C-alpha cells in the first residue's frame, strides 16, 4: 500500500516535469533503503559507468556534432549532395534524406538536425514545387533518420548500457540504416515525379566545386567508419580524432567559428546534454543493478512466458511495447531505463543482443515522430511555425513506411548481423 502511494506520487511528479534523474534517483534510493543496503551503492554504480572507457566517446562525438551544426557544414553537405542527386526526379528529397541521415549520425539525434539542416532544406523544397505537406513530413522524419549509422550517440549509449561491443553495434546498424533511407527515398522519388518537380542537370563542374568546398569534411565519415571497421582504432579513439579534427578544421581551416567567441558556448551547450544524460545514466545503473540482483527481469520473463511462447510473438509484443515507450520517453532515457530489463528477457527467447539493439533503436526512431511527446514533431512545429497537428498529419505516410521497414528489420536478423559476421568485428 505504502509502495503504491509512493509510486503514484513519483509518477505524478514525473508527469508534472520533475527531472527524470531525480525520479530514478529517488526510486533507486528507496529500493536500496528497503533492502537495507547503504545508499552509497547507487554511487558505486554511477562511478563504475562514468569511468567506463566507452563513455568517453559520448562527450567527444557530441561536441564534434554541435560544432558541425554551428558551422557551415550543413550548407556544404547539401550543396555536395545536390550536385550528385539533383539530376534524378525527386532528387532533392533524396538529398534531404541522405544529408540528414549523415548529419544525424554525427550529431546524435538530439534534434539538432531539424534546426541546422531542416531550416536550410525546407525552403528549398517548397521553392522547387514539392508539396508543402510532403516537405514538412520529410524534414520531420529525416531529423532522426541517421541514428542507426555510426557514430550516433544512441548506438554508443545502447552498447554501454547493454554491455556489448560498440564496434559490433556500429557494424550492425549500417544495412538496416540504409534500408530505411532507401525506403523513404523511393517514396520521395515517387512523390517528386507526381508533383513534376524540376531537376538540376548533372554537371561535373558543380560536383567538382562542391567536393572542393567540402574537401576537409568528406574524409571524416571515411576515417571514423573505416578506422573502426578496419580495427585501426576503437570507437573511443575515433571520437577523440573526430573532436580534435572538427575543431581544427572549422576554426582554423574554414574559419566558420571563432575559438574564443563561439567554441566556449558550443562546449557548454554540448556538455549540458552530456550532463543531463550522465545524471540519468548514473542513477539508473544503480537501480538496474538492484533490479537484476532481485531477479526482476527473470520474474518478468516467467510472467511473459505464460502468455508468449514463441520468439516471433515476443518480437511483435516487444515492438508494440517499444513504440509506446518511444511515445512517452525520449530516446536516451528509454535506452537507459528499458534496455537492462529487456535484454535478459530477449536472451531467454534467444534473440541476439546486437539484433535487439537495432530493433530497439529503429522503434525509438519511430518514437521521435509519434505524439504525444515525439521530439521531432515539436521541433518541426516550432522551427517552421506550423501547428503540431499539421506536422503529425504530414508525417503519417512516413511513419507507415518506417513501420514496414521495422517489421523487415525485426524478422530478418541477417540484415543486422550479416555485416558483423562478415567483418568479424568483436
Amino acid at each position: 500500500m505504502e509502495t503504491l502511494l509512493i509510486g503514484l506520487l513519483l509518477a505524478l511528479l514525473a508527469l508534472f516535469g520533475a527531472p527524470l534523474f531525480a525520479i530514478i534517483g529517488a526510486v533507486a534510493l528507496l529500493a536500496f533503503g528497503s533492502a537495507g543496503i547503504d545508499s552509497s551503492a547507487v554511487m558505486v554504480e554511477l562511478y563504475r559507468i562514468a569511468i567506463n572507457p566507452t563513455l568517453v566517446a559520448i562527450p567527444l562525438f557530441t561536441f564534434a556534432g554541435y560544432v558541425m551544426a554551428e558551422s557551415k557544414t550543413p550548407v556544404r553537405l547539401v550543396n555536395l549532395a545536390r550536385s550528385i542527386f539533383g539530376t534524378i526526379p525527386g532528387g532533392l528529397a533524396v538529398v534531404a534524406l541522405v544529408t540528414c541521415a549523415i548529419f544525424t549520425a554525427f550529431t546524435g539525434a538530439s534534434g539538432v538536425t531539424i534546426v541546422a539542416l531542416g531550416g536550410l532544406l525546407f525552403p528549398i523544397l517548397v521553392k522547387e514545387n514539392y508539396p508543402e505537406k510532403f516537405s514538412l513530413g520529410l524534414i520531420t522524419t529525416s531529423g532522426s533518420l541517421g541514428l542507426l549509422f555510426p557514430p550516433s550517440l544512441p548506438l554508443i549509449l545502447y552498447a554501454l548500457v547493454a554491455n556489448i561491443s560498440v564496434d559490433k553495434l556500429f557494424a550492425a546498424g549500417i544495412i538496416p540504416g540504409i534500408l530505411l533511407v532507401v525506403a523513404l527515398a523511393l517514396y520521395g522519388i515517387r512523390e517528386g515525379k507526381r508533383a513534376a518537380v524540376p531537376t538540376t542537370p548533372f554537371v561535373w563542374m558543380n560536383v567538382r566545386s562542391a567536393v572542393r568546398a567540402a574537401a576537409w569534411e568528406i574524409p571524416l565519415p571515411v576515417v571514423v567508419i573505416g578506422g573502426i571497421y578496419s580495427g585501426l582504432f576503437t570507437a573511443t579513439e575515433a571520437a577523440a580524432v573526430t573532436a580534435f579534427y572538427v575543431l581544427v578544421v572549422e576554426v582554423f581551416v574554414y574559419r566558420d567559428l571563432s575559438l574564443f567567441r563561439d567554441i566556449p558556448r558550443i562546449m557548454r551547450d554540448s556538455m549540458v546534454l552530456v550532463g543531463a544524460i550522465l545524471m540519468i545514466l548514473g542513477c539508473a545503473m544503480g537501480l538496474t543493478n538492484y533490479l537484476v540482483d532481485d531477479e526482476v527481469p527473470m520474474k518478468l520473463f516467467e510472467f511473459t512466458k505464460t502468455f508468449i511462447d514463441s520468439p516471433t510473438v515476443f518480437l511483435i509484443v516487444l515492438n508494440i511495447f517499444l513504440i509506446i515507450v518511444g511515445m512517452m520517453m525520449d530516446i536516451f532515457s528509454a535506452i537507459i531505463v528499458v534496455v537492462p530489463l529487456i535484454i535478459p528477457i530477449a536472451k531467454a527467447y534467444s534473440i541476439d543482443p546486437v539484433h535487439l539493439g537495432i530493433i530497439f533503436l529503429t522503434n525509438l526512431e519511430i518514437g521521435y515522430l509519434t505524439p504525444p511527446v515525439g521530439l521531432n514533431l515539436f521541433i518541426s512545429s516550432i522551427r517552421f511555425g506550423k501547428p503540431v497537428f499539421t506536422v503529425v498529419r504530414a508525417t503519417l505516410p512516413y511513419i507507415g513506411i518506417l513501420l514496414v521497414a521495422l517489421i523487415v528489420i525485426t524478422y530478418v536478423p541477417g540484415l543486422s548481423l550479416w555485416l558483423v559476421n562478415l567483418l568479424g568485428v568483436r
Partner: protein
Amino acid sequence: MTFVRSLDRLLIKIESAFLVLFLGTMIVLAFTQVVLRNLFDTGFLWGDTLVRHLVLWAGFTGAAIATSEERHISIDALTKFISPRVKSVVQILTNLFAVIVCCLLAQAALTFLSAEKEAGGSLILSVPSWIGLIVIAPGYSLMALHFVLKVIEDAMKMSGASGEAL
C-alpha cells in the same frame, strides 16, 4: 530577485569556465593519446585515466548548468494543460523534490568517498583511488543549490504577482 538571479549568473560563469577547461583538456589529451599510441607506440600512463575522469567532471558541471537552464531530461506530459499560476506552484514542488534527491545523492557520495578512503588503494601511480570520486558530492550539491535558487526565484515571482493582483 536580482540577487538570486545574479548569484545564479555568477555560478554559471564559473561553471562555464571550468567546463571549457575540462572539455578542452579532454579533447586535446584524448587526441594526443591516440597519436602517441598509434604512431609512436607510447602514451602517458595517466592519460586515459585522466580523460575518463574528465568526462565525470565535465558531466557534473554540464548537469549543474542544465539545472539552471531547465534543460534536464523530463517526461513533462501534463504541464501543458495547466494554467501558468498552477504551473509555478507545481514547478516549485518538483524543484523542491529535486533538491531533496540531490542532497540525498550527495550524502550517498560522501559515504562512498569515506569508505573508499578507508579501503585505500590507488587510482593510478601514487594517486589514491578516492581522488577519483571527489567531484560527485560537490556536483550534486551544486545542482541542489541551483534548484534552490530556482525555487526562491519562482516563489518571489509568485508573491510579486499576487501582490500586484491585490
